[in-house]
């Protein structure tokens, strides 16, 4: 009921779990300082923060919607649009770059049909580039759902992605 006309989710047959979202919000009712915590929890479970949800948080936690909206668009951890089931981060840092990261990016873009910052139509992957994941010795590195995969060739990166549902 919280997500009346969101076509992207309808087409996916995967509606927002409104009850669960309410549960998270209600647990912190009236506590403005819990805002970011609530946003993180909902983002983690729901993979994005629809505007109606932002409005409900604002009301329940007594934070102006303008501020909630600013925070939701300020941090990269929050997404105002639906995100894929898997977060793919391709390292474009110097070390990875010289070891072939651009070719990995090309391969991944071709395979998924999306560019950095985008999510595919099936909501399978969201692609981002990052500047150094802090494990340069493993370069080139691709991180998927928080797990780092190092020393990848373009072919291996394609294989890796194919292993995800």
């Amino acid at each position, binding site marked *: 009921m919280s997500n009346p006309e969101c076509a992207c989710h309808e087409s996916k047959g995967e509606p927002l779990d409104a009850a669960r979202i309410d549960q998270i919000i209600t647990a912190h009712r009236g506590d403005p300082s819990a805002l970011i915590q609530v946003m993180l929890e909902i983002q983690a479970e729901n993979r994005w923060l629809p505007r109606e949800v932002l409005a409900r948080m604002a009301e329940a936690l007594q934070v*102006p*919607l*303008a*501020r909630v*909206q*600013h925070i939701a*668009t*300020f941090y990269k951890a929050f997404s105002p649009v639906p995100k894929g089931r898997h977060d793919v981060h391709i390292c474009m840092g110097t070390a990875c770059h010289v070891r072939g990261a651009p070719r990995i990016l090309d391969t991944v873009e071709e395979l998924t049909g999306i560019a950095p910052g985008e999510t595919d139509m099936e909501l399978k992957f969201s692609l981002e580039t990052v500047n150094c994941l802090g494990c340069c010795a493993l370069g080139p590195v691709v991180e998927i759902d928080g797990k780092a995969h190092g020393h990848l060739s373009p072919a291996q990166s394609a294989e890796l992605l194919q292993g995800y549902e």
Partner: protein
Amino acid sequence: MSEIQLEIDGTPVTATPGMTLLEAARAAGLSIPTLCHHEGLEPYGGCRLCIVEVEQRGRTRLVVSCVFPAAADLVVRTRSPKIDRMRKTILELLLAHAPHSPRLGELAAEYGADPNRFEQEAAFCVHCGLCVRYCAEVKQLHAVGFIDRGITKEISFLPEIALRECNRCKECFPLCPTSYLQAAFVLVEGLMSTNGRA
């Protein structure tokens, strides 16, 4: 502990605790240029035009006068070749975004800033935050806020609130140093009246 004695541009100035350097200077009739400052709002320190030089225990540094607390025995200079140079550059950067702002134009003339020094990238909003802060702090309506950050940061009206409140208020319009605020509001109004009702 009540009064604080300091010196601004060679003039002895008395301030009370909690005053900023800008307030102390203005109370003494000395002027410092500002863009994002507003007397009725919390100190913000966004535009950096109000920088001054402060000398304390033989060391000189640059501080932002609208947020820097007045303290005893400070020696403050509101103009110097260095300060003027920095203000000039700040103005040139702002002018690249809002070339037609009257307020910026006045200051540019005073500091010899060249509006064409940097490639124009007219975004019109210079992020002074006056509209956002006024609406939040004074009116407590939160009808306009910022979204995003860095070079993509922009103001955004919340249509639900704006349509209800803004028409009878509009107190932030004259605060905007550019004409962007008004333009953004007209746009929101237009969009909402075409797809909201009718």
